[in-house]
C-alpha cells in the first residue's frame, strides 16, 4: 500500500543512509570479486574449499570483531548483478494496457555472427531493426522502426481485445550484393490477447446462458425476459460510476487502493 509523499521523503532519506552504510560495507568486502559470484567478507572468510573443521579457528577469532555475532551464525556476503545477456534470440510481447504493448528482445552472439557471415561483416550497420505487429484477430499488420540502442519498446495499438504477435526483423537501408531482399526475418514472439476495455453492450445476443455449478447443467434464458439489464440504467450508470472511481488514478499517490504493501 502506498505511503503518502511526506513519508516517502522520510523513507527515501532513510534508504539513502542505509544504502550508504551497505555500500561502504560492500566496498570493503568485495571490491575485487567478479560479478555474479558471491562475495565473502574478510571477517568471516571461509573459502569454498576450506572444510568446516579447519575454518573454525579463523572464524572464531574473526568473529570477535563483529558486533552481534556472539551467538549468531555467519552468513556469506553476497552481491549480484542481473545477467547482461542470455544469449538467445528471442522477442517477447506483453500487454501493459488494452492498447499498449511492451516488447523486449535479444539476439544471440551466434546469430549475430551467422548474419555477419551470411550478409557481410557490416550487416548490422547497413540494416535497421523493425518490429512488425500482426493483429491476428482483425488480420492486419503494421511496422515500427526501432533502433539498435534499445532492447525493449512500448507500442501503441488501436484495438483492444485482439490477438497480437510480433516479428523482429531488419531492413537494409539499400539493397546490395550481399543483401538482396528488402526484409530479413529474425524471430517471432509469443502471441497474446490485449485486454478488453469497455462494456460489451453491443450484443445482438437473444439468449443468455447459465450453468448450475453444482450439477454442471447448462440452460438458456431469453434475454428479453430478464429485467435487470433493462433496469440497470435506472439504478445507476455504470460508466459514470466507474469513471468516478478511477478519476484520480492518474495520480499514483491517490490511487492508494490496490496492493497490500505496508
Amino acid at each position, binding site marked *: *500500500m502506498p*505511503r503518502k509523499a*511526506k513519508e*516517502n521523503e*522520510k*523513507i527515501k*532519506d*532513510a*534508504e539513502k*543512509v*542505509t544504502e550508504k552504510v551497505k555500500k561502504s560495507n560492500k566496498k570493503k568486502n568485495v571490491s575485487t570479486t567478479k560479478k555474479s559470484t*558471491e562475495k565473502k567478507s574478510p571477517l568471516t572468510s571461509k573459502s569454498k574449499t576450506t572444510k568446516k573443521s579447519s575454518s573454525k579457528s579463523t572464524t572464531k577469532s574473526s568473529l570477535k570483531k563483529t558486533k552481534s555475532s556472539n551467538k*549468531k*551464525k555467519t*552468513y*556469506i556476503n*553476497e552481491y*549480484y*548483478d*542481473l*545477467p547482461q545477456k*542470455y544469449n538467445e534470440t528471442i522477442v*517477447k510481447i*506483453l*500487454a*501493459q*494496457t*488494452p492498447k499498449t504493448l*511492451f516488447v*523486449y528482445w535479444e539476439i544471440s552472439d551466434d546469430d549475430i555472427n551467422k548474419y555477419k557471415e551470411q550478409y557481410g561483416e557490416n550487416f548490422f550497420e547497413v540494416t535497421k531493426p523493425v518490429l512488425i505487429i500482426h493483429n491476428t484477430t482483425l488480420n492486419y499488420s503494421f511496422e515500427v522502426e526501432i533502433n539498435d540502442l534499445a532492447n*525493449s519498446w*512500448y507500442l501503441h495499438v488501436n484495438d483492444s481485445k485482439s490477438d497480437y504477435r510480433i516479428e523482429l526483423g531488419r531492413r537494409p537501408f539499400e539493397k546490395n550484393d550481399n543483401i538482396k531482399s528488402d526484409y530479413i526475418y529474425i524471430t517471432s514472439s509469443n502471441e497474446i490477447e*490485449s*485486454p*478488453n476495455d469497455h*462494456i*460489451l453492450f453491443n*450484443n445482438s445476443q437473444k439468449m443468455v446462458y*447459465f*450453468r*448450475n*455449478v453444482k450439477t454442471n447443467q447448462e440452460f438458456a434464458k431469453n434475454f428479453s425476459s430478464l429485467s*435487470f439489464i433493462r433496469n440497470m440504467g435506472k439504478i*445507476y450508470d*455504470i460508466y459514470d*460510476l*466507474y469513471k468516478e*472511481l478511477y478519476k484520480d*488514478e*492518474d495520480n*499514483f499517490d*491517490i*490511487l*492508494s*487502493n*490496490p*496492493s*497490500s*504493501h*505496508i
Partner: protein
Amino acid sequence: MQQKKGFVSFVLHAHLPFIHHPESDDYLEESWLYEAISETYIPLLTNFKKLVDEGVNFRITMSMTPPLLSMLDNKLLQKKYIKYLKNLIELSKKEVVRTANDKRLNKLSHYYLDRYSNDLRLFKEVYNCDLISQFKHFQDIGVLEIITCGATHGYFPILYVNEKTIRAQIAVGVQTYEKYFGRKPRGIWLPECGYIPEADKYLKEFGIEYAITESHGILYANPTPIYGTFAPIVSPEGLIAFGRDIESSRQVWSSINGYPGDFNYREFYRDIGYEADYDYIKPYIAHNGVRVHTGIKYYRITGKTDFKDYYEPQWAMDSAEKQAGHFLDCRNKQIDDVSQCMDNPPIILCPYDAELYGHWWYEGPYWLYILFKKIYYDNCNFELITPSEYIDRYPEMQICSPCRSSWGANGYSEVWLNQTNDYVHKHLHYAGDRMCELAYLYPDAKGLKKKALNQCARELLLAQSSDWLFIITNGTMVDYAKKRIKDHIGRFTKLYYQIKNDNIDEDFLKDISKKDCIFPDIDYRIYK
C-alpha cells in the same frame, strides 16, 4: 426485522512479501510484519473473538498469502516480534514519565503502554506465538472463510508467458494453505486481482472454485454479465468470479471522501519516531540512526491543516460508529434497488487490503466490529455471507469469460510493467524457462542435487513477488526491492549453472537455504 433481500461479503486480503534476514538486524523492512501484527492481525482476531463471545453471527473472508503464513510461522521472526514489542513497551514506559505534566498526552501514553503490553501478553501467553492457529480457529467455527493466493504473489498477467510458472504459483499456494489449514481452499485472491483466462484450467486442476476480480473483470466480461457485479459469473472453464462492488469500495477507499480520512481518526504520519528528541528516541529507531515510525502516534487528523490536535480515542470511536451506520444505510438502499431486478438475491462484494484495517486506518477493525454488530442487531435488509456460501445457495450463474484485469491503477498492468520496472520481466521469464528446463533435465534428482533444485524453485518464486515491482513503481524503499530481485535472480542463476555443471557449492546452498527458507516442503517437479 426486515426480510433479507441480499448479501454483503467482506474480503480482506492479508499479504506481506517474504522478508527474512537472519544475517542482519538492519533491515527496516522486517518491521512491516511487526506493525501489521500489532495494528491489523491482533486487532482483527480480538474483534472476531468479541463478536463470537457476544453471540453476534457474522461472516468474513480473508486471503492469507503463503509468504505471510510462512513469516507468521517463522520462529526467528516470532522472536524478533517479541523483541520489537518489548522495545516498544520500554519506550511507552518512558513516555508515561516524559508526559507526566501533560494530562491529555499522558493519558495517550498510558493507552499505548496498555496496548503494547496487551499485545505481548496475547502473543506469548494466549496465542503461544501462533497467529495462524487463531485464524484457523475462526475458520473452523464457521465465521471466517480463509482463501489462498499465488505462492509469492506473482502477477499472473505478466508471468503467464510461461504458463508453467503460473501453475507453480497456484500449486504452491494451494499446498501451503493445506499445510496450515488442513483442508483445500475453495477460493483464491489472484495476486493484485490479476485475472487471465489462461489460469482457469490450473486453478480448476488444484480444486479452486472461485476468484476475486476487480469490478471491470466482471463488467467488461464477454458476453456482458446481465447482473453486473451483483452476481458471480462462471467462466467456460468453470472458474467462478466475484467482482468488487464499486459504490462500497469508493466509500472506504477514496482518499478524499473515504471513511479513513475522518478528522477524529489517528494521524498516521505523526509519530514520535520523527518528533521526539533525537538522543531520547535513538535506541528505538533504526540501528543506523535513521528516524522511523515507532507506532506511538499522539495526533488526530484534525483537518486539512499542519496544526494537529491530540488524538482522542473516544471521539475516534464515535466517528467509527457513525460511519458504520452510514455504510449500513447505503447498503440497505443499494440492495433495495438492485434486488428488485434480480432473480437471486444480490451479493455486494467488498474486498480490501487487510492492512488497511488497523495499520493505515487505525480505527478500521473497530469500524468492522461495530458494523457487524449493527448488521446483526439493527433493522437491515441483508446478511453477511462468504463467497462459498453464496455459491452453495445460488449455484446457477451466467457463463461469461471475465475480462483480463487487475486492481492496480487504471485497471490493467501499468503498476507492474512501466518504465521504472520493465527491465525485470525478461529476467523473471528467463529464470522461469530455466527452472522448467532443470525440471525436465533432472526429473528424479536425489540428495544434494534435489536440494539445489528445490532451492532454485524458492529463489524463482521469491523473485516473482509482485511486491518488488510495485515498490519500484511507488518510489519508496526502491533500493531494497531492486536488491531483492538481484539477489533472487543472482542466487537462482548461480545455482542453475552449478546444477548443470554438476559442481554444487554446498556451503553456498546451505547459506541461501537459511536466508530464503520459505516453503520447506517444495518439490521442484511442479515445473515439469
